[in-house]
């Protein structure tokens, strides 16, 4: 509810602001262009992820000083500590770097971000940035149109820099015009209440803009225009430093526990640094004044002094916190423990049934039924179908196009958690039970083991099939769409057939009935391939899609075959003799192929 109201309210407020004040409009558009520049830069750096960048990342974070330097340098180059922290979270989530290394980068990024203040304070407000922005933008856009991935990336980075500069220019212009209107300094609050108030404003502004850089630029430009007092500007800088962690926290929301730990470290570091800065603000200001005199900065050049302040308090934070990194890592690992992987346990495999062959076979069979159910679940949702449709009364042909957007994500994870773990324990159970078993019983065990192994293949097949199916089920080309719909129907048909056999009860001829399903899928696979040849010859589908289809037919065929095989084992009758008789009567691969080839099956 809040979410629904929030965005329209912000838009309305902004609209009203634009209508009332053209200066506000200029500042806001400056912020917008600045943020857009950041987005473009992020897009540009994405072109360099993978390969060389990852290798460099590993090499440059294996020592604490290296990761600190890496964080500082990359943030200086990218001019965004948020971007560096979010990228670091993603690398940490991918286990490319250690948590301590990640924390080092975050600490370094806090130092690196201070260069932004220097750039704007020392360079941005004295030079007409817009004069640089335009040529950079032009070069950037030209490079964006290049085919080469590297040039394309550089283009985005340049365009990003161009927009950043342009944004700063607009914000500066806006504040300068503002100066004639209202004097913000008259609202200045002194002392600790003012400090806390402006720290809070700094936090809120940074959270809203998602960039401490943008806040700092605003603060510096406002300070240069005399819109805020020096004292309050310092408090805003402290606030922006705390508020900037919001991007990392948001980024960590979708990451694993390692990413969350890093975001936690980021928050702790910036909060502690902020508290130190608040507590020792008097001493830090004296230090800043001393440094300014040493560097030959005029006593009233508050913008440069703010840059020094920003650097000093962040350096102080790093100096104080760095020795505690190992303790911080331990603490974070303790507070945010990695969730223990949830592996399914078998339900029917128990020690007692190991002593009797029949009991052992029955336990394994029941467990294989569970395994079958779990696999079916993955397959159904993996190909974007719904259980109620697959096992319902509606003809499968009527399900065309339904559920295309409901594909199951995380197939691998589900496979690891439920199927693989159960199958591993079934295997172990079988090998223990088989010792000293009669050959007939051992044969049953072998059949279950083989069918279970086929599941590996079917789940893998679903994973591969899903990639193309997702795209092609929404294709504009009806021939492609219908080919993938047919694949889904075929899978649905097999699942339905197996379910029918399951429901048939003790009188069932599971092995023989499903033998027919095997014939059906073989025949349909052959027909689909023939149809595909016609489609390619008739230029109805491109050759590249045809290649994908050939592979996907193969995957679908294997999925169906493995499902049938497990169904034959899991839902076979309890009577060993009856099972054996059915196995002898079932048609083998050669016999099926011969039937299709000789046209017995049409």
């Amino acid at each position, binding site marked *: 509810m809040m979410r629904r109201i929030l965005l329209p309210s912000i838009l309305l407020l902004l609209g009203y602001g634009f209508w009332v004040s053209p200066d506000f409009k200029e500042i806001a558009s400056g912020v917008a262009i600045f943020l857009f520049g950041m987005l473009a830069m992020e897009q540009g750096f994405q072109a360099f992820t993978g390969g060389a960048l990852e290798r460099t990342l590993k090499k440059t974070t294996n020592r604490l000083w290296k990761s600190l330097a890496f964080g500082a340098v990359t943030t200086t180059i990218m001019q965004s500590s948020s971007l560096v922290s979010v990228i670091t979270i993603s690398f940490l989530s991918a286990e490319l770097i250690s948590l301590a290394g990640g924390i080092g980068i975050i600490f370094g990024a806090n130092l690196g971000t201070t260069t932004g203040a220097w750039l704007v304070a020392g360079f941005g407000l004295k030079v007409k940035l817009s004069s640089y922005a335009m040529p950079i933008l032009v070069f950037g856009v030209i490079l964006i149109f290049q085919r080469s991935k590297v040039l394309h990336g550089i283009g985005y980075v340049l365009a990003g820099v161009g927009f950043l500069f342009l944004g700063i220019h607009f914000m500066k212009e806006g504040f300068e015009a503002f100066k004639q209107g209202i004097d913000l300094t008259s609202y200045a609050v002194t002392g600790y209440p003012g400090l806390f108030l402006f720290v809070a404003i700094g936090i809120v502004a940074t959270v809203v803009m998602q960039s401490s850089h943008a806040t700092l630029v605003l603060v510096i430009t406002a300070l240069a225009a005399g819109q805020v007092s020096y004292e309050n500007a310092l408090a805003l800088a402290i606030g922006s430093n705390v508020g900037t962690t919001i991007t990392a926290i948001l980024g960590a929301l979708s990451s694993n526990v390692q990413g969350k730990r890093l975001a936690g470290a980021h928050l702790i570091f910036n909060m502690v640094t902020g508290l130190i800065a608040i507590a020792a603000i008097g001493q830090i200001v004296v230090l800043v004044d001393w440094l300014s005199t040493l560097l030959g900065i005029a006593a009233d050049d508050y913008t440069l002094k703010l840059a020094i302040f920003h650097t000093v308090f962040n350096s102080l934070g790093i100096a104080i916190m760095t020795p505690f990194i190992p303790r911080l890592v331990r603490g974070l690992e303790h507070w945010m423990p990695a969730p223990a992987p949830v592996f399914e346990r078998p339900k029917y495999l128990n020690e007692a049934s190991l002593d009797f062959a029949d009991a052992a076979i029955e336990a394994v069979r029941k467990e294989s039924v569970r395994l079958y159910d779990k696999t079916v679940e993955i397959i159904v949702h993996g190909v974007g179908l719904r259980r109620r449709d697959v096992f319902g009364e509606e003809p499968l042909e009527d399900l065309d196009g339904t559920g295309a957007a409901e594909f199951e994500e995380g197939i691998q994870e589900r496979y690891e958690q439920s199927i693989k773990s159960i199958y591993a324990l079934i295997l172990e159970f079988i090998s223990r039970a088989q010792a000293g078993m009669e050959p007939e019983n051992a044969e049953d065990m072998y059949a279950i083991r083989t069918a279970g192994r086929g599941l590996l293949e079917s789940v893998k097949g679903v994973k591969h099939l899903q990639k193309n199916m997702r795209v092609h089920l929404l294709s504009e080309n009806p021939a492609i769409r219908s080919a993938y719909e047919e694949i889904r129907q075929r899978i649905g048909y097999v699942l339905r057939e197996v379910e029918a056999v399951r429901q048939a009860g003790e*009188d069932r*001829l599971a092995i*023989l009935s499903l*033998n*027919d399903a095997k*014939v*059906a899928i073989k*025949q349909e696979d052959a027909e689909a391939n023939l149809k595909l040849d016609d489609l390619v010859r008739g230029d109805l589908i491109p050759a590249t899609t045809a290649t994908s289809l050939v592979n996907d037919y193969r995957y679908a065929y294997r999925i169906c075959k493995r499902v049938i095989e497990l169904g034959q084992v899991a839902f076979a009758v309890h*009577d060993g*003799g*009856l099972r*054996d*008789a*059915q196995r*002898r*009567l*079932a*048609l083998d691969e050669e*016999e099926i192929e011969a*039937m299709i080839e000789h046209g*017995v*099956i*049409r």
Partner: protein
Amino acid sequence: MKTRRLVQKIKEFLSADRRAQIKRAGVLKDVLKKLEKKEARLKEKLDREKDAARRREILRKLEVLRAQRKKGVKLQKELADLPSGRSSR
């Protein structure tokens, strides 16, 4: 001679293999009967079915069933022809 044949008959009767063989033949007969019934049901279904695709599916099922039955009958014959005491495995 007569005594020897009688002993042989008793031996066969007591032999586990022979008993398994007899049991197997019985089960096979049972399965074939079930298949026969299933075939009859499918034929009825085929007569009622008007939809071409469904008819084709039933026809395929019938063909597979016939092939399975053919295999079963052959196996039945083999079992009957086997010298007593030997399994068809």
